[in-house]
């Protein structure tokens, strides 16, 4: 099968590269290019003037073509196509037969009909050849002008500045700059910025003639005015090069674009067209990314014609024309539908005329999805916005946050790279997904952006995705514990989050099993409690089961808080702070009998201090008979859910806060987490339960509940933030389930929810997206997992006193089980007692 490619531009080259990679047996490829150079990076043409030499722009060296068996003819354009005989005739006189002909002839600069364009000093801005001519002419002159205020025209103006022409003029026929990409305000902003940078821009200006004898000396405008200039670059748009197609009778469009179908096939089944010469659905795609996509479509199509089994079919269905570039050092970007407007669209605009920043996003009326937008002056959010738009990722509840600059003390807003789905297209030029980039890091060991570029080709086109590629690399390396090694201790090379996933995956249920399979050495006081907490969070089994007892943190090991002097305190659970007189009497009697000091805690419970280790099982037996259960005051677990008295008694109360607090406390009792968890429910906005200082706090409203999360008292008090408003009781429980599971899954050891949130990229908006909008798609799983933890709950003190093996550990002397520690000393204080001071 003989394939002839007409044209060796960026898209023609990309077609060869992709075709060669498929290793189709029995094909011969010939390429005929008009220029003297093998395909080069036309997108970065102006970097030629910044000193990059031509080989730096080359996409592949001539030897690449040889090594891949491609017969490359440069400076030898195809001049005619004989369709009936399937022959091409070239400028140098070759006549070659083809089975498949691929037209990748690109486009040429559109030259408006102006009198005098043939004069010396008038240039186009399209090829390396043009650049050489411009360069040598500019060295001799002082002033320069560009016709065309579009993308390329402004690039050309930048090139003039680089060549030492200090104040180039730009002439635009339309009323504004870059009319295809920017709205009026954006154009105005760009114009102001560019003017400040030394360009003089004339909009609404129609050039009627070029002045000068043989050499250009100035421009004549239709309104009668004129402008002196030593040279002129015309960059007024492109025109597809379809001459060959017209001559051989293929169907072409009004500008000469070659009409193609979804497989890039022209009206002759043996002839295809790709890139800027192809006219698809009455549209010419003048960017490199869609051209590459066309090349991919065609390669897949040809492969499937010749090879079995076929690849999944691929069709061209149009392409996103989003673009980002730097014009004279100014960020300019537009994406999605930059002009979306009307009833079903919310436009959000941020404008700072001093800083030259204009940002517009178009959001669906319900505020959920991003439709498109424009960024001038600051396009740092471009990649994320583009991905959010393309992948239809839910916006945060205040969509304006995504374009607001990050402020001090406020983390980067909106979704980070981490939230993108695996198939999100990061590099649209080369069609590289997030997954392939992450995999190049994990599987192929790429740890620099250059290595990733080489391995995946991401970022080798326009380069606009490189910041994102870097973020993904850092993120993936972090995930592997490579960049920031956040490992547990010398015995485990994993972070808590990684370890949790592994313990879950391998269904490990004892500390030793985890250490044998995932760690090394003999453990220590850092990894033992952390692993024990993970095991408890995952399986919710009795923590003092043989094999796990001695790996528990000191307090967990004896199910009580060790106090000064070596005695313990006892805190029975009093859900919501509600207690019957009978139970109060029991506590009083128990405290009396065992000589305990009693105090009301901050969490609406009663703490009994001064219990000897050996007395603990007896104390608990009596408490359990009276209907108490463990309060987990000793564990990194749910402590209390405090409540105000609420609508049952209070004249201001809106909801029954006590009943709800009891429900919440009984649901999450015994739940172990990276750190302790406190909660509260207030019956109205007077907030008597101080819910906003808790890990999660609930405040009644007229319609239901407001749920606040990640508050903290302690040494660095922090108010909880509103996660969801006016939700009903069931929804509130659902959100708390998800919130707690997310926390348990991802927090570092001994990190309270407040700190966890402070470290979270995207902050509360990200958290809300995960919990409320289920942006990670984990909600259902988390709810099921939480329910199984709730179902597995048992009072561990009850289990402990019923098990003789466990009960045996509750004595001070192994060889004198009934004796108490004689060194424990108490002193009287008011009507009770206190422990003797530290020595």
């Amino acid at each position, binding site marked *: 099968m003989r394939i002839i490619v007409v044209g060796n531009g960026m898209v023609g080259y990309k077609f060869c590269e992709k075709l060669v990679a498929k290793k189709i047996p029995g094909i011969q490829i010939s390429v005929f290019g008009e220029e003297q150079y093998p395909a080069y990076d036309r997108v970065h043409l102006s970097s030629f003037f910044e000193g990059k030499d031509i080989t730096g722009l080359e996409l592949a060296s001539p030897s690449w073509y040889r090594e891949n068996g491609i017969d490359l003819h440069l400076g030898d354009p195809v001049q005619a196509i004989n369709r009936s005989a399937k022959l091409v005739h070239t400028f140098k006189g070759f006549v070659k037969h083809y089975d498949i002909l691929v037209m990748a002839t690109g486009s040429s600069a559109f030259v408006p009909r102006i009198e005098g364009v043939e004069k010396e000093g008038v240039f186009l801005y399209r090829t390396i050849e043009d650049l050489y001519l411009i360069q040598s002419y500019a060295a001799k002159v002082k002033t320069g002008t560009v016709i065309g205020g579009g993308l390329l025209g402004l690039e050309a103006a930048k090139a003039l500045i680089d060549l030492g022409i200090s104040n180039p003029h730009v002439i635009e026929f339309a009323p504004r700059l870059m009319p295809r990409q920017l709205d009026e305000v954006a154009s105005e902003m760009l114009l102001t910025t560019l003017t400040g940078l030394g360009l003089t821009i004339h909009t609404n200006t129609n050039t009627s003639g070029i002045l000068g004898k043989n050499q250009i000396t100035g421009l004549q405008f239709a309104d009668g005015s004129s402008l002196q200039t030593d040279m002129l670059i015309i960059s007024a748009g492109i025109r597809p090069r379809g001459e060959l197609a017209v001559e051989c009778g293929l169907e072409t469009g009004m500008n000469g674009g070659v009409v193609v179908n979804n497989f890039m096939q022209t009206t002759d089944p043996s002839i295809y067209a790709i890139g800027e010469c192809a006219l698809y659905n009455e549209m010419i795609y003048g960017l490199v990314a869609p051209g590459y996509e066309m090349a991919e479509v065609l390669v897949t199509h040809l492969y499937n014609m010749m090879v079995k089994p076929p690849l999944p079919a691929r069709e061209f269905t149009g392409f996103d024309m989003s673009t980002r570039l730097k014009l004279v050092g100014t960020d300019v970007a537009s994406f999605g539908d930059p002009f979306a407007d009307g009833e079903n669209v919310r436009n959000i605009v941020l404008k700072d005329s001093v800083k030259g920043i204009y940002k517009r996003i178009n959001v669906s009326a319900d505020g959920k999805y991003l439709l498109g937008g424009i960024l001038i002056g600051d396009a740092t959010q471009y990649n994320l916005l583009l991905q959010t738009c393309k992948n239809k990722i839910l916006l945060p509840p205040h969509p304006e946050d995504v374009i607001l600059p990050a402020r001090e003390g406020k983390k980067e807003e909106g979704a980070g790279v981490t939230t993108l789905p695996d198939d999100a297209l990061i590099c649209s030029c080369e069609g590289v997904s997030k997954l392939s980039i992450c995999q190049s890091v994990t599987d192929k060991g790429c740890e620099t952006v250059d290595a990733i570029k080489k391995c995946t080709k991401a970022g080798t086109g326009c380069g606009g995705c490189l910041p994102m590629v870097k973020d993904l690399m850092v993120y993936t390396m972090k995930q592997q514990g490579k960049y920031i090694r956040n490992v547990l201790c010398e015995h485990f090379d994993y972070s808590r989050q990684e370890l949790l996933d592994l313990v879950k995956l391998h269904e490990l249920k004892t500390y030793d099993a985890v250490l044998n399979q995932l760690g090394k050495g003999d453990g220590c006081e850092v990894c033992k*409690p952390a692993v024990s907490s993970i095991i408890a969070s995952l399986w919710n089994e009795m923590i003092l089961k043989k094999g796990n007892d*001695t790996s528990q943190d000191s*307090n967990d090991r004896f199910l009580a808080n060790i106090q000064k002097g070596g005695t313990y305190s006892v805190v029975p659970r009093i859900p919501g702070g509600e207690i019957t007189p009978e139970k109060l009497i029991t506590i009083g009697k128990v405290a009396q009998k065992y000589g305990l000091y009693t105090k009301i805690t901050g969490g609406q419970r009663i703490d009994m201090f001064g219990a000897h280790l050996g007395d603990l099982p007896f104390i608990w037996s009596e408490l359990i008979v009276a209907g108490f259960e463990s309060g987990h005051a000793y564990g990194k677990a749910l402590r209390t859910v405090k409540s105000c008295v609420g609508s049952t008694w209070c004249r201001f109360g809106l909801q029954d806060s006590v009943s709800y607090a009891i429900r919440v406390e009984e649901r999450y009792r015994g739940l172990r987490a990276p750190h302790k968890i406190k909660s509260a429910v207030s019956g109205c906005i007077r907030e008597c339960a101080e819910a906003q200082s808790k890990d999660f706090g609930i405040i009644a409203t007229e319609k239901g509940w407001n749920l606040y999360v990640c508050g903290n008292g302690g040494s660095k008090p922090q108010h909880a933030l509103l996660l969801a408003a006016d939700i009903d009781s069931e929804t509130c429980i659902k959100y708390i389930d998800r919130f707690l599971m997310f926390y348990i899954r991802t927090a570092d050891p001994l990190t309270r929810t407040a700190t966890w949130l402070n470290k979270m990229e995207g902050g509360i908006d990200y958290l809300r997206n995960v919990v409320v909008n289920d942006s990670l798609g984990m909600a259902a799983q988390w709810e099921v997992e939480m329910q199984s933890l709730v179902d597995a709950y048992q009072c561990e003190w009850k289990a402990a006193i019923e098990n003789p093996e466990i009960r045996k550990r509750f004595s001070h002397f192994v060889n004198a089980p009934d004796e108490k520690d004689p060194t424990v000393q108490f002193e009287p204080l008011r009507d009770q007692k206190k422990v003797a001071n530290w020595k």
Partner: protein
Amino acid sequence: MTQQKETALESDRWFAACRVEDVAENGGVCVKYGDSQIALFYFTRRNEWYATQNECPHKKQMALSRGMIGTKNEEPKIACPFHKKTFSLVTGECLSGDECAIKTYPVKVENGRVYIGIGQNDVS
């Protein structure tokens, strides 16, 4: 330290503390010896036994037997439950950077019984 150990081994009594199964695996218990308290540890993972004074020298608390054992670069150690000060189970030296140290005792196991070697100067 070596000298102290030798003294204990040579001249003094081996005190029968308890049976092997009385000690939690990879954990400790407190042994009463007259008016003294000795912490006894069964490092099951390494099949090693250690004994030290039960009092943590930091705040003078009788608590080391309730602490967590582990290793630091292969060196067996005990962490006090009060403030997580750690001490070498081999040398008694404080590994958390304090000047204090704890007394250590030799341990032997015979016929399922655990013996602690007490020197004459060890016990007050």
